[in-house]
């Protein structure tokens, strides 16, 4: 028997027509009913992320899920491909520090068939070595291509100094070439058996299918998932306890520079203020680094919304990393010391309102917001309600949040030593009061 637990439509900033319910096996489902259109979005979240990995199996979940989705007992490879041809459904996978997410986009009429196939692939995967091997080679090529691009790699360079040795977030959910190439179908099967448990799964949905119908479809498909689940260890604090810098030499015309620093966890009293502060930093980075000093094409700042541990960051690509880093810390310091106009703070809230409006048009974004909010805080409304807090934010609040949390800076730089003098690199302090 499926129980619709409660209907939530009473908070002005949270969307209407959101329903939460549990399947009989305990899988939690959050559905936003969108009455217009024929496009459905459904996200399958497998909670755990980096916390369930170790040095030797980085990327195993990405490998196992992709392997599973090549076919199942009832939907073998060719039949599954035929269904993809007929429905033109698309699947997007992402693997991050807190969870793996598999997102389905399809038309309403195809949702029943695709949900059945989806669950069957996860529970009864075919795991044909040839098909899986092909998929594995594709994954490796994609991964290698990303690692070849300094614009992607710079984030990993910055992690080394910021996170500290042994931190689980240093483990790559999408794998590293040496681990990803070592997995086989047995590894995939074992991983799926241990991880596909109801307590590890959250499903979110946005689209025209009613919650009642969705509940029926999910009970038939994902209701087959065995009960149980993992107990996840606490995510430790990041190891950084002083300003650090990691430099990598690469023959690039443009240097890349990222700095990371601590941020409050999602759901903290400081989250809204810190998030706004980094929005203001973002605005001022553009103003100072790009508009006034023309040092870059791309500069930005922001903060993460992971489960327990978060960070703020600033990024730039530039041929003048030393001057840029110095100006970036100046921008940070201005915001942390309250030397910004209230209109910029208000502007960040205004921009965020528009961004939320844009996201409301996308079933994919809605599924992500519902799921990430629920996984991070236990309440899907959290990312929606952030807007209310943003609109009341003052310069004093944001400067205090930034100076309280962002203490030590973990810098990462990729540059060409024949172009840039590495002796000038130093871990520039953030200098809030």
């Amino acid at each position, binding site marked *: 028997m499926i129980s619709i637990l409660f209907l939530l439509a009473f908070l002005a900033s949270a969307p209407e027509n959101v329903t939460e319910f549990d399947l009989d096996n305990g899988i939690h489902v959050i559905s936003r009913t969108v009455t217009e259109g024929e496009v459905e979005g459904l996200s399958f979240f497998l909670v755990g992320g980096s916390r369930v990995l170790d040095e030797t199996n980085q990327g195993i979940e990405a490998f196992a899920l992709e392997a599973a989705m090549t076919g199942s007992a009832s939907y073998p490879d060719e039949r599954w491909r035929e269904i993809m041809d007929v429905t033109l459904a698309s699947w997007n996978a992402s693997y991050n520090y807190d969870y793996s997410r598999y997102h389905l986009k399809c038309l309403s009429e195809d949702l029943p068939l695709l949900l059945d196939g989806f669950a069957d692939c996860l529970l009864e995967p075919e795991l044909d070595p040839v098909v899986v091997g092909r998929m594995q080679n594709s994954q*490796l090529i994609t991964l290698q291509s990303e690692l070849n691009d300094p*614009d992607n790699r710079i984030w990993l360079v910055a992690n080394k100094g910021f996170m500290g040795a042994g931190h689980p977030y240093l483990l790559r959910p999408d794998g590293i070439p040496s681990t990803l190439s070592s997995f086989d179908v047995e590894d995939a099967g074992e991983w799926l058996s241990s991880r596909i448990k109801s307590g590890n799964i959250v499903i979110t949905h946005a689209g025209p299918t009613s919650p009642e119908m969705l509940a029926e479809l999910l009970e038939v498909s994902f209701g087959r998932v065995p009960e149980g689940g993992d107990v996840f260890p606490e995510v430790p604090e990041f190891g950084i306890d002083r300003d650090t810098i990691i430099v990598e030499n690469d023959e690039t015309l443009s240097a890349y520079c990222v700095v990371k620093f601590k941020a409050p966890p999602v759901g903290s009293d400081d989250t809204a203020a810190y998030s706004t502060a980094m929005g203001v930093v973002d605005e001022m980075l*553009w103003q100072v680094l790009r508009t006034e000093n*023309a040092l870059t094409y791309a500069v930005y700042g922001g903060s993460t919304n992971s489960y327990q541990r978060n960070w703020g960051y600033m990024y730039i690509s530039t041929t003048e990393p030393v001057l840029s880093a110095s100006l970036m810390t100046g921008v940070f310091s201005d915001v942390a010391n309250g030397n910004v106009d209230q209109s910029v703070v208000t502007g960040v809230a205004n921009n965020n309102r*528009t961004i939320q409006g*844009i996201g409301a048009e996308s079933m994919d974004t809605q599924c992500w917001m519902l799921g990430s909010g629920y996984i991070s805080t236990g309440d899907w409304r959290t990312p929606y309600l952030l807007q209310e807090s943003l609109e009341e934010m003052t310069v004093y609040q944001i400067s205090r949040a930034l100076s309280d949390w962002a203490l030590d800076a973990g810098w990462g730089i990729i540059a060409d030593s024949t172009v840039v003098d590495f002796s000038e690199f130093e871990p520039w302090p953030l200098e809030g009061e």
Partner: protein
Amino acid sequence: MLYTLILMISMNFPVVESELPNGLDVIIGEDHASPIVTVCVVVNTGGTCESPESNGLAHFYEHMFFKGNVALPDQTAYNNRMRELGMIRNGTTGNEVVRYYLTVSSDLFDEGLQFMYDAITGPLFDPSEIVNERSVIMNEYERKTNNPFWNLWRMQEEVLSIDKCRSSSIGVPEVIMAADQETMLEFQYEYYTPDNSALIITGDVDAEAIMPAVTEMFSRWEYGGRSDYSTLGLNISIPKDTTVHVGGPEGMGMIRIVFVGPSMVDQQNWTYAADVWGQYMGRMTGEFHNNLVANGPFLDVYASYYSQRFEPAITFGGTIAPELVDEGLEMMRVEVQRMFEDGYFVDSGIEMASEQLRRHRLFNEESSRDMATETFPFWWVEGGGLDYYNNYPDSLAAVTAGDISLYLDRWVKDQPSAVFIITPEGEWVE
């Protein structure tokens, strides 16, 4: 009468298209799913309008678009205004199209529309801002050179283009560093006129209610009649079979076989068969995929036609282990030849391909913002107006196996091709 009004058929929301007396196409789509509105100006220009002396100026102009203008000359005040409006905005420059767009809450539509009008009609091109922007664009250029596929892009321009400067919208450093107010004004004079542009508005608006204000405001934009866009010639040519080896990322092999395709300017009748053919070939249960991927050495394959006015291309491609590229190329060539065998294209597959294209359209119309910034601008430019997009489903549904065979006989069979082989090994031309 101020404008003509045409009701268009969109699958997800109603769209009206009209033309103002100054030649500006106005396209409005009502979608009340979210309280936002997106305003986009699309201009018939881009890299294809450039010469060696102006290679990069279309893109440079785009960078100057969101700068101070006659209404808001001070850059700081300009940036403040964007924040006041909570405006999310961007611009893009392609070879055949330039787009500028902004999204605001629908209660700020009037202000957003005014902002766009001021930006498109009153740029200042402040010399000091231009000097600054040279460095910004150079950094964008440098970033592109770090992309793993930079070599491939460069070689494709070299081999496929009649005039390679028309294929490279990022431009060349010499032109970027020499850009000045005069060159910006020249570009504006020639291309930034209402008769060479379209105004697209989608989202939470009432088309009938806003049309008078839109008409009143944008009718003030002065007619130009100077753009040479519609007279530009084709910029792709493959006079003889050519094979190019290109350096690529470690561990990756790729193959591309390119043929000249039908132009969206005057060969549109071929393009419906081309699109159905591409979809047919892309089916994961089709012979092309089965023979090359499921039972072959490729990791993925595709066959596609790119709808373009000046550089239309038909491409067969795939990803493969670097050590297998020679074998893969031979197998792909065999598969290309198999398309000419009787019975290769079957009705059931063609129906599926047409249905897939219909579904593509439904998925693409999920977001009104994407419609304003991606779908409508693309088809307005490439189709020479939205009639092509409007009639697209019916035209696809009429495509037969015979049409596809005729298309392949005309554009692929015995035609010269350019083959690009991407491996980590390096670069040479055969």
